[in-house]
């Protein structure tokens, strides 16, 4: 198939997708009257009140279809076409579809909480769409690297778009801050497993922008991330995204990851500063090896310190269990009632009113709250232990010497944005 024909097929597919999106805008128009209108004696005509009809079920299938299609197209653009321009326009599409049209929901980043909740609470019926949004990007990443991050994730795409003057961060900053998503992932799992909250969604900085409404704080947070993103490319993806942790792990073992150069690296260094995410590993000559004795000492030290770090982390996490548990609505309500804080600014909080009308006894509420805090205690140990382990592993990896001949993308951190390819003068 000639290149011209391929381009035409892609154009038609893109046009088809666009038409599908535009048509779907009109689908929710049918609606129904919910309450009877009040009657006014002065002849005032009440404007009609409508409640939008729920979104059609089949649209969920369409969402999954669009996700697969987008991932396939972007993967093809990254691995086959090596087209930065193509990836750029695909980002625009994702911003439009998954961002503004779908209002950032369902998103793969948040879906990991639904999956966790479903694993820990059998009563929760997780929608298949959500499972699809969680699993499909992971599968693609296992095979092709983080093409999902490249241009399909709406959170990443909007940040990629604003990365106009990105500055490289020092490696130690990148590595140290890069550990925070692990902590965030742990917290998100802990809160979802205890049915406390979906913190990723609650603190999603871009949801307010995509929905064009939200609290002032939410919009300011989104604006701050975008503003920071002009100079520090994709700050949320690199230093916060919990789903990125999973994609990072999957991408490390990906079968066919993108490469900077299509054939042999000529060491021209044109790509050296092209990656705004600091994901290009530079060549490391063989003579930079550390002394053998130093390496052995490091290895012994780390093998001892990793278990210690796990214990310290676990202990610190367990200490925090009460503070963490206070986010849980049941614990918060029980604490309010225990401390007899029954009104806030003279108004009874809705939670307390709801509790009173539920008929549940105070004793059972306290028992339930105590049980939740116990869950957080165990969760705190596990979370802290894992964070300690990750720190240990990171330290260990930083002592390992790796010989490298060419400029290569770091398979875990590379977001497959293809900027570096655009700079490579080597042709196939």
């Amino acid at each position, binding site marked *: 198939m000639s290149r011209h024909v391929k381009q035409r097929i892609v154009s038609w597919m893109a046009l088809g997708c666009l038409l599908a999106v535009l048509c779907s805008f009109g689908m929710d128009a049918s609606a129904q009257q919910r309450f009877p209108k009040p009657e006014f004696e002065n002849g005032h005509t009440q404007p009609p009140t409508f409640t939008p009809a729920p979104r059609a079920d089949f649209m969920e299938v369409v969402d999954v279809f669009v996700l697969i299609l987008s991932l396939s197209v972007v993967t093809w653009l990254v691995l086959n076409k090596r087209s*930065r321009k193509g990836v*750029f326009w695909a980002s*625009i599409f994702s911003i439009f579809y998954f961002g503004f049209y779908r209002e950032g929901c369902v998103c793969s980043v948040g879906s990991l909480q639904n999956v966790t909740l479903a694993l820990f609470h059998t009563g929760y019926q997780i929608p298949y769409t959500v499972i699809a949004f969680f699993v499909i990007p992971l599968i693609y990443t296992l095979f092709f690297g983080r093409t999902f991050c490249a241009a399909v994730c709406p959170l990443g795409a909007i940040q990629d*778009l604003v990365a*106009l*003057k990105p500055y490289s961060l020092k*490696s*130690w*900053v990148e*590595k*140290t*801050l890069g*550990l925070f998503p692990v902590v965030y992932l742990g917290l998100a799992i802990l809160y979802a497993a205890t049915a406390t909250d979906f913190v990723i969604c609650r603190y999603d900085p871009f949801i307010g922008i995509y929905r*064009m409404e939200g609290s002032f704080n939410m919009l300011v947070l989104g604006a701050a991330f975008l503003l920071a993103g002009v100079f520090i490319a994709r700050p949320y993806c690199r230093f916060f995204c919990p789903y990125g942790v999973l994609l990072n792990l999957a991408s490390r073992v990906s079968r066919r990851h993108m490469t900077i150069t299509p054939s042999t690296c000529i060491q021209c*260094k*044109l790509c050296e500063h092209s990656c705004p995410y600091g994901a290009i590993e*530079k*060549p*490391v*000559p063989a*003579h*930079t090896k550390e002394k053998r004795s130093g390496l052995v000492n490091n290895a012994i030290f780390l093998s001892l310190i990793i278990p210690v*770090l796990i214990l*310290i*982390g676990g202990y*610190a*996490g367990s*200490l*925090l269990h*009460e*503070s963490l*548990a206070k986010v849980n609505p049941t614990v918060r309500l029980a*604490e309010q009632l*225990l401390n*007899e*804080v*029954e*009104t806030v600014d*003279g*108004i*009874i909080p809705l939670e307390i009113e709801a509790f*009173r*009308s539920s008929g549940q006894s105070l*004793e*059972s509420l*306290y*028992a339930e*709250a*105590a049980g939740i*805090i*116990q869950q957080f*205690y165990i969760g705190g140990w596990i979370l*802290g232990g894992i*964070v*300690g382990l990750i*720190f240990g592993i990171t*330290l260990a990896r*930083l*002592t390992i010497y790796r010989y490298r001949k060419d400029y290569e993308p770091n398979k875990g951190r590379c977001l497959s944005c293809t900027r570096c390819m655009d*700079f490579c003068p080597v042709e196939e």
Partner: protein
Amino acid sequence: MKMDLWKGIAILAAVFMLLVSLLTIVNYLQIQRADPIHTETINLLVDRLNQNPQDVSLRDQIRELDLLVRKAYFTNQWQVRTGAYLLLISLAVFIIAMQIVEGRKKPQPELETEETEGFLSIQKNTRRWVAVGGGVLVTTALLLTYLTHSELENRFELAAQGKPEVEKQLPAKDSVVVVQNKQADVSKQAEVVPVPEVLPNVEESKEVEKKPVEVQPKQIAENEKIEPESPKKTEPSKTISEQTLKNNFPSFRGYGGNGVSFKENLPLHWDGPSGENVLWKTEIPLHGYNSPIVWEDKVFLTGANDERQEVYCFNGNTGVLVWTAVIDNIPGSPAVSPEVTPDTGHAAPTMCTDGTHVYAIFSTGDVVALDMSGSIVWARNLGVPRNHYGHSSSLLTYEDKLLIQYDHSNEAKVMALNTQTGETLWSTARKVKVSWASPVLVNTGSQMELILNADPLVASYNPETGEELWQLKCMMGEVGPSVVYADGVVFAMNEYASLVAIQLGEQATILWEDDEFLSDVPSPVATDQYLFVATSYGVLVCYDAKTGEKYWEQEYDDGFYSSMMMNGDHIYLIDKRGITHIFKASNVFEEIAASPLGEAVYTTPAMGDKSIYIRAEKHLYRIGM
């Protein structure tokens, strides 16, 4: 050439974006400051309209102004929204143009640098910072734990088992010391002046003055303050005849709290703003939602806030505030007043009297008995009621007993205190939720019964012993209205629950039920034939007392918080705006009069001799001719 075009687009978009941002921010700030519901000018005009409700042009002016304010508010909102869209579009254009411009720039190859040495130092440096990061995380965890840990899990576990860890915070119980003959901080304000000499009697004043006498409470300077009387010896309570109690107005909703008064020639027509038939009007020092009680020529009220609890005695003939007793330093009383909501306050329960003493209770759980000159006979704290709105059940007396409905979330009970000493004579635990209703004491033919309304029980007790006589599980929610009794039937209701008619007999049984019109605050009145229900949203309904058949319903613009009072075949009901609707107790609606007071009223009127006492928001009024 193409690059210049994209650069130009980017610059244009940036300038446009800045302008739109600026305008949107200004609009946003305007919206934040504007509150179309609480516009100062409109509020002033509404106040003026309240004083003169017939002013049609003022009403129209308010409407026009209100429409204008709302239009401005929504236009601003529209502008902000449109601004946001424009901003978004221009931002998108700017970013795309910039991306294209930046993407086309090609970098220059860099000269060889000493990377090899850097690699190891980078590794080392990174290790150090990762370790520091870990240290920061652990330190943060320890610091947070230190700052926020409060043994919650243990406290919850103990609370779940009902152990003292929690109970230590609960209020004290009946073992509180009873203070007898404690001298209250009594400010005598007018007793020194013989009333007849100051003002002509009421009959005469009608002839002389058309305007009501407005009495301001006198502020007595420190040096003028009259020394409180020395503690009096407790005077034994005389047995007061039923007729004497009926001749007075000794408690909330009259004798027994059943909503019936036994007076003659009560006024029908008055007009507060012009002063027609308003005998006097006196400012009440502290706020309270309790209603007046009357004994002979004395009218009693309470008022309280976070810091102060006071009992007031007014001269019924002149309106002069005779004395004010400050209720403080009661053993067991909390140092800080419990949290209450503004719509209940600290002084919601109405006082009661047996003619010898007057009794008051406050949100703190402080109960006090005072003699007729304002000296404290005894005082005690019943334990701070755990009540999320504030305690509001009113008091009743029966022979030598002060009857208290004390249904709170920490403890629910009904109790009787000795009117002479304040000691507990009996106390009966109740399995009910918090109730804001007041007790009703009626003679059901065979005996006196104390009937209480709460979630989930309507229950009756023997006022002599506290023994439960009967109960029916038929109520739910946050119960506000008290029951009413007539001809062997008890009527109880609450909003979001139902209206229940309970036939008394060998066994209390439900006669009929209805759930169309329910009250959450005002209590009903009943005759042998009819039941009258008023709701806080302004509907007045008449039912057949025996069958539940609805005879009529009447809707008013303003709702009711005040409870109805029945006198003969007339029913008095005051709406929130202060208009008293007087209608016939009949199966056909017939309004006899609608008399405005000119001030908001949330309390129930007390019936005096040929006159009515009304506690409005800030003033106490005596209406009469």
